[in-house]
């Protein structure tokens, strides 16, 4: 298979505009003749559904939740980047492009990332027009803040709820189109499979979660915006229902999966309290601007933090990285926290946490200053942990947060299955090996509002698609397979709960395919996953039947896919013989323990092709050519 990224020629700055000039169009009268299925209603899927419906297409929109407003984009806190340069601090499209490509450790496509930066400004215009209450200055103009190490202030925000407000913007635009009759909304549906007719994606098979009915839906194209797979690790900052199933089914149908081992682990989360922990909560990274990270010098020191004298505290980030101190990037901070805990210096009841201490900044600036800056975060911490962070140091630990990997897409955001488009976190396209803060919201909305509405038109206008509806045999075949799988799952009446098996899978991935990876550990994971999968199919318990609402059955289906997908992640991590961004292989590091890229041999996107049950997947490589930026090595000393 030859991977054609379809990146247009010409200078970087002109590629997208020139491409739009030449793209085929669907006339307004013809748009209503096309049906488009959109899977997922987060920022990418919601914005795509609304915009495609506004253009006149017939949209069928599916989500897992009871209403599209609950997609997990809603939990994004920090903000959304754009190159508006309102503060006049020298930002521009080039800088946003460059920061994103460098932050991704040079493992993303130049043309896609440049387009993202170009579109960023129109997103802010549109969301403002929708009534998104972005923070403002006293003069009434939009406010910006700095974020994630960028040297300019380019982040727009709505308190600590930017994701929520942007998603409600998408949601209200969708509801407007529902009432206009252009969107048919189908909530509480699980995507079971993609239906392929004559080699093109022509529909989906879904399960109605209330009735258990297996439904068939046909269209001219399918847009998948089903989010990321961080929950493979069981514990993550993702919503608990986030899953890989739709993307994984597409992979099994012929869509290539790109960079599955690129998983971002966020350093400042509230630590795990016990076995029954169900999810992890992120605390804004901004805390590291003032808080000091430390552990006791002596391992096994069980005294309460305030009893440990200054001389017995190890401010390990400040010692190791004198220039950046507590502000080293996410991956470096995360890896170091794990290292301290592995040495037995971890704190808290589980020993899996480090302190983030505000004693010194409170003494320096006063409690009221710290409260103004971080009050809401301190409240959140106290609510969850039950300790007052003004008096006792916070405990933090890294957690799985975002995945850069996803289905491979070309410049049109189309996968290797014609007619299957993939947007947002579900695709791999813009963040390389590491995502910068406030860039996920930007990418989801760019894909949905400003890319897919054009590129899907080009596809529909330029492709002959025969009339196909859900009575086509391909739909019944796919539905039958899905039904058999559901039957098989609901027949599981063993002795171990689905969550318990999922927890074990998460543990394997966290230990061996997490922050620091080694050849040995990855091979170990590869050995441990298949028996666990076998155990699942023999010993899991799924109470109840398939014909009504059954949440265990829903979870079982997702875990079954994670158990297969996990192997692909590990396989990808083994194949990438370098360290880059979030993928840190201990065999490839500088003397200062920084990620050491191998640009000569590893400057590529890995794209995996499903080869059939029991066979090893086939690796294809899309070489990355950098014509406009110079590849450099990161250093934070």
């Amino acid at each position, binding site marked *: 298979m030859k991977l054609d990224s379809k990146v247009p020629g010409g200078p970087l700055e002109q590629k997208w505009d020139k491409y739009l000039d030449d793209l085929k169009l669907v006339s307004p009268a013809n748009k209503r003749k096309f049906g488009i299925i959109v899977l997922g209603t987060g920022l990418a899927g919601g914005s795509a559904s609304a915009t495609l419906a506004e253009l006149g297409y017939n949209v069928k929109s599916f989500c897992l939740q009871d209403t599209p407003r*609950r997609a997990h984009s809603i939990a994004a806190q920090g903000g959304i980047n754009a190159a508006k340069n309102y503060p006049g601090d020298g930002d521009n499209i080039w800088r946003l492009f460059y920061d994103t490509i460098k932050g991704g450790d040079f493992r993303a496509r130049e043309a896609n990332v440049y387009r993202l930066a170009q579109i960023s400004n129109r997103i802010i215009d549109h969301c403002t*027009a929708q009534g998104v209450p*972005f923070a*403002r200055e006293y003069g009434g103009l939009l406010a910006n803040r700095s974020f994630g190490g960028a040297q300019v202030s380019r982040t727009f925000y709505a308190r600590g709820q930017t994701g929520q407000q942007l998603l409600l913007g998408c949601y209200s635009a969708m509801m407007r189109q529902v009432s206009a009759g252009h969107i048919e909304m189908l909530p509480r549906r699980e995507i079971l499979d993609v239906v392929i007719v004559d080699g093109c994606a022509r529909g989906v098979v879904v399960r109605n979660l209330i009735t258990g009915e297996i439904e068939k839906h046909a269209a001219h194209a399918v847009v998948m915006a089903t989010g990321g797979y961080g929950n493979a690790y069981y514990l993550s900052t993702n919503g608990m229902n986030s899953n890989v199933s739709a993307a994984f089914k597409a992979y099994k149908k012929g869509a290539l999966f790109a960079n599955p081992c690129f998983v971002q682990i966020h350093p400042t989360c509230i630590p795990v309290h016990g076995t029954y922990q169900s999810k992890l909560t992120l605390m804004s990274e901004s805390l590291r601007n003032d808080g000091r990270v430390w552990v006791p010098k002596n391992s096994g020191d069980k005294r309460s933090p305030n009893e440990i004298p200054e001389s017995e505290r190890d401010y390990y980030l400040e010692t190791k990285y004198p220039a950046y101190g507590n502000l080293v990037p996410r991956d470096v901070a995360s890896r170091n926290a794990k290292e301290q805990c592995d040495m037995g210096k971890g704190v808290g009841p589980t020993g899996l946490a480090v302190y983030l201490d505000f004693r010194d900044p409170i003494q320096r600036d006063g409690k009221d200053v710290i409260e103004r800056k971080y009050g809401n975060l301190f409240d959140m911490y106290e609510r969850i942990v*039950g300790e007052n962070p003004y008096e006792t140091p916070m405990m933090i630990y890294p957690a799985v947060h975002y995945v850069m990997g996803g289905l491979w897409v070309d410049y049109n955001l189309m996968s290797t299955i014609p007619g299957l488009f993939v947007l947002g976190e579900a695709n791999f396209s813009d963040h390389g090996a590491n995502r910068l803060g406030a860039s996920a919201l930007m990418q989801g909305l760019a894909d949905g509002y400003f890319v897919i509405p054009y590129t899907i038109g080009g596809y529909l206008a330029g492709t002959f698609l025969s009339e196909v509806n859900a009575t086509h045999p391909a739909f019944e075949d796919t539905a039958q397979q899905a039904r058999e799988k559901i039957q098989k799952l609901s027949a599981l009446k063993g002795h171990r709960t689905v969550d318990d098996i999922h927890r074990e899978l998460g543990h394997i991935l966290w230990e061996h395919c997490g922050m620091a990876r080694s050849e040995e550990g990855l091979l170990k994971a590869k050995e441990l996953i298949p028996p666990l999968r076998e155990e699942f199919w023999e010993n899991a318990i799924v109470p109840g039947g398939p014909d009504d*609402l059954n949440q265990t059955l829903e979870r079982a289906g997702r875990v079954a896919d994670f158990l297969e997908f996990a192997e692909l992640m590990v396989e990808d991590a083994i194949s990438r013989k370098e360290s880059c961004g979030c993928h840190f292989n201990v065999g490839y590091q500088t003397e200062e323990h920084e990620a050491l890229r191998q640009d000569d041999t590893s400057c590529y996107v890995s794209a995996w092709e499903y080869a059939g049950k029991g066979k090893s997947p086939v690796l294809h490589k899309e070489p990355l050519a950098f014509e406009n930026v110079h590849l450099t090595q990161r250093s934070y000393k």
Partner: protein
Amino acid sequence: MSGAINLTLKIWRQKNAKEKGHLEVHNLENISTDMSFLEMLDVLNEGLTLEGKEPIAFDYDCREGICGACGAVVNGYAHGPRKGTTLCQLHMRHFHDGDTIVIEPFRARPFEIVKDLMIDRSAFDVIIQAGGYVSVNTGQAPEANSLPISEENSELAMDAAACIGCGACVAACPNASAMLFVGAKISHLTLLPQGKVEAGKRALSMLRKMDDLGFGKCANHTECEVQCPKEISITNIARLNREFIKASFGSSVR
């Protein structure tokens, strides 16, 4: 700090919308006080599953208090007794050893029970479809800073826009009114110049839709404000009433 407590749960079981429900009693031992309320229910469900029984159905997703999926009436209060807290952010340290906890779904005629604690809140979507938006298509927007908005109004709009659509206000209201939910959306959009153009039409049509769907009238009990996990203020209801009266008397929209 950490501890463990024993609890008796009286929890609502109902197979589906049509069948009759009942309270079922479960005893739980050794529940860590660091758990969230939903994690406590997870423990119960793991136990039920191992016994081959059907677990309790309840909605959840983000478990950080923002998606609005979860919610139940706990000891008579929507989302439990702690102020400004969703059920997923309510922790067991606020309960005592030996407590009996009564857990029921949000009850209101327009919210049909789907199963156990899970309800159908699609009526909220229908209300938003009646006008809870600014009619702007992608691509039509002017430059964002061409429209200055006072910081005060922007902040007030944000206060209202923080609603998570969980339905606690309706469950808390003796009349099952959705006025706080509708008031929050109307306020969010009316406080901003972008939303002013359609303000009259929006107020009339959202309020009428609310009535059509079977939600009750507001009688100023203010329970909605007390039990709202996002502490949305009832001044939003006052603003809604003002907009409704203004539109009813003063606008050409009917």
